[in-house]
Structure formats: structure tokens, C-alpha cells
């Protein structure tokens, strides 16, 4: 969408050299650059909010010193920046016994997975980098790339903790893709499309047209999807791959400096993607909750980001409340609770569509 839009714009601006391949490259690179900038700013924002929310929950203030106005500034607004600078200027250590090429490859792979998923996230009617007809399928597919990266990271570190972490995360992410997928199947059944924009279009017309309120089964589907999303992004209570009191730091045990920062950032980027998918599929995407109220293209970005951030906030909130599950309980939850209920939901919603819808 956006690529075509920019390409057309460039062609109109310079009619003499219209249709140039160079313009196409610019038209592709510009949104990617914007995306990178967005991820960075978003990363700072979400890390800051994670720190602050956790601090307030724990009766602390969180960082207060690092803010505008040098030392003793207000609210520690620049704390994530300081963290980032610290991580990026740290010594880059590669353990002697590590499998070097794979060790270097792993963080890039996980970041690519997070980044490429972003291009199918719709922020407005026109504001989507590529409007694919299988958008939701694409995001789920690209999201599983992370599994390979995590196994690579765990294996190549040549550390027992990292190996445990890698293996746990592989089992966990692959398993939880099934309930997440099943939940999305229900949405696809309702919207009869894999296209993100069409799913959003199905939910047009305010709060009560959202898929989550479509029929009595949808809240359950949403909860299953959201919890599976937590598991896929390795967030507490499913942070077994990096459970700090058991596995030291799991698959990132041997990573430091920039590489660690990339792992860190991709975790938060994944959170955004999965929350955006949840917001698109269940909460009406960029639609305003009220029909004809602030429902312009500019506001659509606001609605989309605020819905996504609400879900991210819930993720943070859950993280600082509950303890962690054990490996077998995690699998128990997935295979014996979510998948049966998810399949039941598919069945029930199908009947609902035939009978009532």
C-alpha cells in the first residue's frame, strides 16, 4: 500500500524519469527506515513504561534521576536511552567455545523475524506498508522464525543453561502456535478473509461490532489467544527460556552488549506485533470504538497504537503479578486446556455462524 503510494508520488513528482527502478527502491526503503525509527522510539517507550509500571506495582519510584535537565532531572525519562547507550558501548564478548557464525547470526535472525512481521501491521486504512491478502497468515509464519533464532542462540553458546533455555523455548513456541492459530482460525471464519484490512473492515461500526463481542465464545477465544501470545513472546508466566532464578538467563546467558540489546529489543518488538495482531483480530484494529467518532485516517493511527499499548500494558501487568509455570505444566496448559477448548470454540462458532450469523 504505502510502497505503491510513495512510488506513485515519486513518479508524479518527477514525471521525466517516471517508472525508474531507483524510485521503487526508495519507495521500499523509506517505509523501512520509518519502521526502524518507530521500533526504536517504541522500544524506548515500552521499556520506560515497563520500568515504571513495575516500580509502581512494587511501591518503588523507578528511575528518577536520568531525565531532561541532567542529573536529578524529572521522572527518569532518559533511563531507556541510558540503558541503550550502556548496552551498545559494552564489550562484545563471544565465548571461546561458542559456535561463532551461529552465535553471531542468532540475534540478527530474531530481529529480522520481529521486523518483517511489522510490515503487515495496519495502522490505518492506507497506512500499511504492504497490504497482503494473507496478512494474518504471514505474521504468524514470520513470527515462528524466532524459534530458529532461539535454538541457534541456545545451541551456539555452548553453555548448558543456554541449551536448556533454547530447548525450552523451542518446545514452548511451537506448542503455543497451535492454540494461537486455532484462535485466529475462528476470526478468519468470521471475517472470511486472511487480509488484515478486511478483518478490520468486518468489525466496522463501533465497539459492539468488534469480533471479541461478536458471539459469546469470542471472549474465550481472545483470552486463549492472548495467553498464547504471552507464551510466544516469552513473557512471564511463560518466561521459562530465560527464567532468571532457574536458568540464570536462559538462551541469552552468554550474550552481552549489542547482541543482548538486540535480543531485548526484539522481545519488545514481538510484543508489539502480537498485540497488534490481537488488536486487529479482536479489538477492531484502527477503528474507533464509537461509530463516526474520531474515525478519520489520522485518528486511526492513534486508535491502533492505543489498543496495542493497552494490551502491552496488560502483558506488563501480568508479568509483575504471577509466578512462573514449570515446563510440564506449560505443556499441560497448552495441549490439555487450550487446544481442546480452542477446537471446541471453532466448532461452536461454526455452528453459530450457520445458525445465527
Amino acid at each position, binding site marked *: 500500500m504505502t510502497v505503491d503510494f510513495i512510488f506513485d508520488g515519486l513518479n508524479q513528482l518527477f514525471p521525466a524519469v517516471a517508472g525508474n527502478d531507483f524510485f521503487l527502491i526508495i519507495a521500499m526503503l523509506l517505509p523501512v527506515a520509518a519502521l526502524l525509527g518507530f521500533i526504536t522510539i517504541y522500544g524506548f517507550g515500552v521499556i520506560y513504561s515497563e520500568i515504571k509500571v*513495575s516500580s509502581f*506495582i*512494587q*511501591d*518503588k519510584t523507578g528511575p528518577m534521576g536520568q531525565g531532561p535537565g541532567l542529573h536529578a532531572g524529572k521522572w527518569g525519562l532518559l533511563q531507556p536511552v541510558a540503558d541503550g547507550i550502556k548496552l551498545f558501548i559494552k564489550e562484545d564478548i563471544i565465548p571461546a567455545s561458542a559456535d561463532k557464525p551461529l552465535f553471531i547470526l542468532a540475534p540478527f535472525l530474531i530481529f529480522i523475524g520481529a521486523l518483517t512481521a511489522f510490515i503487515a501491521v495496519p495502522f490505518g486504512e492506507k497506512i500499511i506498508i504492504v497490504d497482503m491478502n494473507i496478512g494474518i497468515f504471514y505474521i504468524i509464519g514470520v513470527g515462528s522464525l524466532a524459534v530458529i533464532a532461539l535454538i541457534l542462540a541456545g545451541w551456539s553458546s555452548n553453555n*548448558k543453561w543456554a541449551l*536448556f533455555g533454547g530447548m525450552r523455548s523451542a518446545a514452548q513456541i511451537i506448542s503455543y502456535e497451535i492454540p494461537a492459530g486455532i484462535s485466529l482460525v475462528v476470526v478468519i471464519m468470521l471475517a472470511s478473509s486472511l487480509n488484515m484490512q478486511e478483518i478490520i473492515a468486518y468489525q466496522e461500526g463501533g465497539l459492539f461490532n468488534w469480533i471479541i463481542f461478536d458471539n459469546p465464545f469470542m471472549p474465550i477465544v481472545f483470552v486463549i489467544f492472548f495467553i498464547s501470545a504471552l507464551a510466544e513472546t516469552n513473557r*512471564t*508466566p511463560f*518466561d*521459562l527460556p530465560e*527464567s*532468571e*532464578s*532457574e536458568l*540464570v538467563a536462559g538462551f541469552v546467558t552468554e550474550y552481552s552488549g549489542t547482541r543482548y540489546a538486540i535480543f531485548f529489543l526484539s522481545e519488545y518488538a514481538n510484543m508489539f506485533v502480537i498485540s497488534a495482531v490481537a488488536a486487529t483480530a479482536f479489538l477492531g484494529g484502527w477503528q474507533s470504538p464509537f461509530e463516526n467518532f474520531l474515525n478519520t485516517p489520522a485518528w486511526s493511527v492513534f486508535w491502533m497504537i492505543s489498543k496495542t499499548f493497552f494490551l502491552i500494558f496488560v502483558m506488563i501487568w501480568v508479568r*509483575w*503479578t*504471577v*509466578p*512462573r*509455570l*514449570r*515446563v*510440564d*505444566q506449560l505443556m499441560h496448559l497448552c495441549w490439555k486446556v487450550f487446544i481442546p477448548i480452542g477446537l471446541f470454540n471453532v466448532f461452536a462458532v461454526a455452528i453459530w455462524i450457520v445458525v445465527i450469523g
Partner: protein
Amino acid sequence: MGVVHGEEMVLNIGPQHPATHGVLRLQVRTDGEVVSQITPYMGYLHRCFEKHSENVTYEQVIPFTDRCDYLSSMSMNFGYVVAMERLMEIKVNDRVEHIRVVMAELQRIASHLLCTGVFGLDLGAFTPFLWALRDRERILDLFELTCGARLLYNYMWVGGLSHDIPVGFVESTFEFLDYFEPKVDELENILAHNKILVERSADIGVMPKDVAISYGVTGPNLRASGVKWDLRKNDPYSIYDRFEFDVPIGEGQKGTVGDCWDRFYVRIIEIRESVKIIRQALASMPKEGDVHQSLPKKIRPPKGSVYARTETPRGDLGYYIESDGSPIPYRVKMRSPAFTALSVLDEIGAGWLLSDVLAILGSLDIVLGEIDR
């Protein structure tokens, strides 16, 4: 589980590991995540307490007892002075006894708070840990008010106390207790009944009665196994026989008697019982009485030996003191409760998953300073 057998792997948990509560090294043999054998290695924090004691005078041992179990220094002092007073046949006045009981019980609350918080932390719940630490700080403030130190007090002396409690201590302790009691409920609500924590700890690491007794496990760990054994009730030292309190035992509410959850929950109930004792002790504390009244001029116990036990937050603390009549102890042996608690880890921890082993370790509430001495 256990059907597919792979190659066994030796894994070193520690000496630097977030879950070992200090510098403990656990060498575990694992098959996948199933642990088949745990061999603890300690001594990383060995500070030669017993050898030191043979080279300093009796009163100078007290600062060293502080440092053995740095999370319950008051109880450590208490055990030592009880042993010494039994050896020298000193009887201290009521005010001293009341103050000692108040201090020991406050210390018990502080220690149990930390333990329950850290148990949650071991299972991944970070927030209750910080709440527990926040309330523990209030207790440390009370100690600072009393003796100027927050962690290592050297407050109880043989035959008395280093000084009297300050004016306003009683009021601020009551104030603290009023503030604190709802916080225990909150801690219990967020942690103890949480389904995930119950799943993680109920039926895990079950310690049967006979195993616990054979391994010399004492304190809350033994009580969680269903043995009603508390030295404050069964062999009352100081003035514990004057107070009314219950001895909570594990009832297997969420699983089997003697599992991790029982060990954890017994501590939460004990916090409440300690609050009761403190309230009674503060109410009945005599206003008059010199804390230095029976302080001996020179500590020179008669020739002989004494073995005295007291109930610290972690269990029976025994001091075996052999005196040869000189002002320097001939031999001081500390029977530390955490030492016996750690020795049972292999027995109850083998066969569980790696995550469970760390949960069991957390539920045993060990302090490495006391194990290594």
C-alpha cells in the same frame, strides 16, 4: 517423564547462581530436566567461627554469632546468651527477658518475610519479594532505633542487653504491627493461594515425618511435615511459657503434608503467631528494671559444658559450649538449623525437575552464612 532416557549431564548450579541464596554449589546430575542426584558443596563462606571463638573471650563471640546467620542475628545472639546463662547460672530480670523475646520475634518476622518473598522470587514472582523487603525494612528501622545497627546487632549480652530500649520503642512497635498485619494478608493473597504457585509447590518435594526427624530437620520445615515441635512450647527457654500462641503445622491443604507449599505456608502463619507474641510481650513488659542488673563483671564460667537449644526462624539452634574455667571458651560448637535443612535436599530433591529442585531449595530457607559458619 522418565520413560525416555537420554545421556546424563552434570550441571553445576552455582557458586554464582541467582537461586542458591548465597554461594552454594549444587552439582546435579540431570537427564534432560529430571534431576537424579544432588550433591551440595559448601564452604565458600566459611569464616572459621568455631576456630575464632577459641581465640576470643566469651563476650567477643557475640559479634561473630551475628555474622553466622545474618538474616536473624538477634536469634543467634539469643541462643548464645541462653547457653551462656545456663552455663553460668545467671538469671536475668523480667524486663530483659521481655525485650529479648520482642526482639527475637521481630527478627523472626523479618526472616520469614524474606524467606517467603524469596520463595516467590525463586518461582518467578518478583513483586511480593519487594513488598516483603519493604516491610522488613520497617523492622530493621525498629532495630536501628534500639541498638543503632540494622543487620548485625550485638545487642544481647550475657546477663543482659547492651542497652535498654529507647523511649517510644513500644509505641512505634505497636504502630508497626498495626501497619503490618494487613500486609501479611496481602502477601498471602497474592502468593499463597495463587494457582500457579500452588501448582509449582504443592506435592513437590514432600518430606515425610521420619525423614525429617532422621535428618535432624527442625523449625518450620519440620513443622510443615506435621510434627508439632517448637522449642518455644516443648522446651521453653526464656519466658516463652508465659505467652499464648499456636504452633502451626503443615496440614497438606493443597497437596501432601510436608510439601513445599506447606513449608511456605507454615512460615506465613508463624509470622501471625509472632505478631501475637510481640503484642503480649509488649503489653506485659515491666516498666522498671535495669538491663545491666545481672551483667557479670567478668565472664568466667565454671568448668563444664552446656548444650542449649533455642528456636530461631530456621529451626533449632544449638550451642555446645565447653568451658575450662578461663575467660576464653575452650570449644564452641554451633549446631545450625540450615545445615541440617540443606542435608535433606538430596533425599527429597532427587527425581524432580530442575525447576522443582530450586523451588525445594527455596522452601527450605537456607542461609549460607550459617551453614558454612
